[in-house]
């Protein structure tokens, strides 16, 4: 399960140089790392880039062990895909590094930027319904994760899980998901009504700054360094 609540806590509580830089600079940083992953032909170059990101994350006070563990989540699917490729260890390694490096950069962005700043930036480029939908999805996700925990505990306490009975388990899980949908809609409607009462009209109160400032040197230089590493690797 994606640990969204913890990510939110890290984003709001840190005060390192990555936290202090502007969201737009971190978006540029992400784009530079994604570009490096797109053009990389050597897993070693990208692995060196991944190492550089680890060092920067550790020096910036980001929770790098957890970020590293989360970034490896992307490797599972990359490995599955790479198994269908007629290639050896080299190509599989390249695919895995191509998956985990942008994932690590993305996680560095989200664990160092509070969500209102990210959604504020997004709402300045996306249509209202999509930006509002993204925001509502993110908020509802927290509620759903809590509900999922409660649901799992409740179903165990009431004997809903029967080892070996696929039919019974599937039926209970399906009804749980259906209940989740119904409750999620009710809660989301309430949250949205409260937001509208408080003055929400499709955009975030905090406007994202699209100007760079001196504290943005770290994400920008890290992104450029990773891209140069991949470009110049022999």
């Amino acid at each position, binding site marked *: 399960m994606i640990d969204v609540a913890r990510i939110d806590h890290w984003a709001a509580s840190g005060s390192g140089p990555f936290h202090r830089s502007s969201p737009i600079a971190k978006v540029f940083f992400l784009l530079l790392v994604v570009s490096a992953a797109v053009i990389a032909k050597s897993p070693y170059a990208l692995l060196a880039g991944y190492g550089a990101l680890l060092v920067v994350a550790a020096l910036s006070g980001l929770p790098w062990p957890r970020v590293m563990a989360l970034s490896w989540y992307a490797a599972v699917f990359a490995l599955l895909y790479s198994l269908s490729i007629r290639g050896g260890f080299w190509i599989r390694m390249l695919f895995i590094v191509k998956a985990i490096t942008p994932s690590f950069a993305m996680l560095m962005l989200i664990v160092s930027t509070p969500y209102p700043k990210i959604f504020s930036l997004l709402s300045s480029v996306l249509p209202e319904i999509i930006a509002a939908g993204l925001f509502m999805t993110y908020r509802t*996700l927290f509620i759903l994760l809590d509900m999922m925990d409660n649901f799992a505990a409740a179903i165990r306490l009431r004997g809903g899980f029967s080892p070996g009975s696929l039919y019974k388990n599937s039926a209970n899980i399906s009804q749980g998901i259906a209940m989740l949908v119904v409750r999620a809609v009710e809660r989301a409607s309430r949250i949205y009504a409260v937001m509208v009462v408080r003055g929400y009209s499709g955009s975030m109160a905090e406007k994202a700054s699209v100007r760079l400032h001196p504290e943005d040197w770290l994400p920008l230089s890290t992104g450029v360094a990773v891209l140069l590493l991949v470009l110049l690797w022999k």
Partner: protein
Amino acid sequence: MTHMHIPDGVLPVHLWLLGFVLMALVLGLCLLRLRNADLKKKIPLLGAVSAVMLVAMSLEILPLAYHINLSVVAGILLGPALGFIAAFITNLILALMGHGGITVIGLNTLLLGSEAVLGHTLFYLLSRRMPVFWRTALATMVTLCIATVALIGIVSVSHIDPELFSHESQAPGQGLSHEGTLSVSRFATMVLTLGFFGWLIESAISGAVVAFIARVKPDLLGHALHRDKFEGDNRGAVR
């Protein structure tokens, strides 16, 4: 399986760029269709359904490495336009969490969004005498089968070029000059074999979810976008 977990830099640039262009066009059409809709009612529903999709997609069914998408459920609950937008939101947030590449957001949204649109269409085309569970399950099964074929099509047209790795093929001992070519038949076999069991699970879960909602909160299925079409259903087909 109809959500590609392909990392960035694997698919050719023209393919993922085309994916982004087509996705933007379809999103534009969806927004055009929704221009007169009451967004105050739609946004909470959109957020809730997208969040449920996200939760569902983050749960792996082992050992199939399959996750349910609930995209057909999203199409039935939200309608085709909002269903497609939900697919975009879900893919964007998944990419933000490192689940699938950023460059494949366009293609993934097209795949997942087409499931929502197709699932919605099939659900309303199937006989209303059929119980909601079976209507949903059948719509889901057919939709996932078509979407998986589309996924295989995308991967086969990607023509992953061995030259992409030619730099390393010259490295001693690597011998990759003929490696790195995607075996479409191998990929198709893997996806269709594992996928089939996944479709069965997803069809059963989707059927049960929509049948439960039809019993407990039928107004969720009769929202303004397709209320007229569903009114008959609530009278006759809900079991």
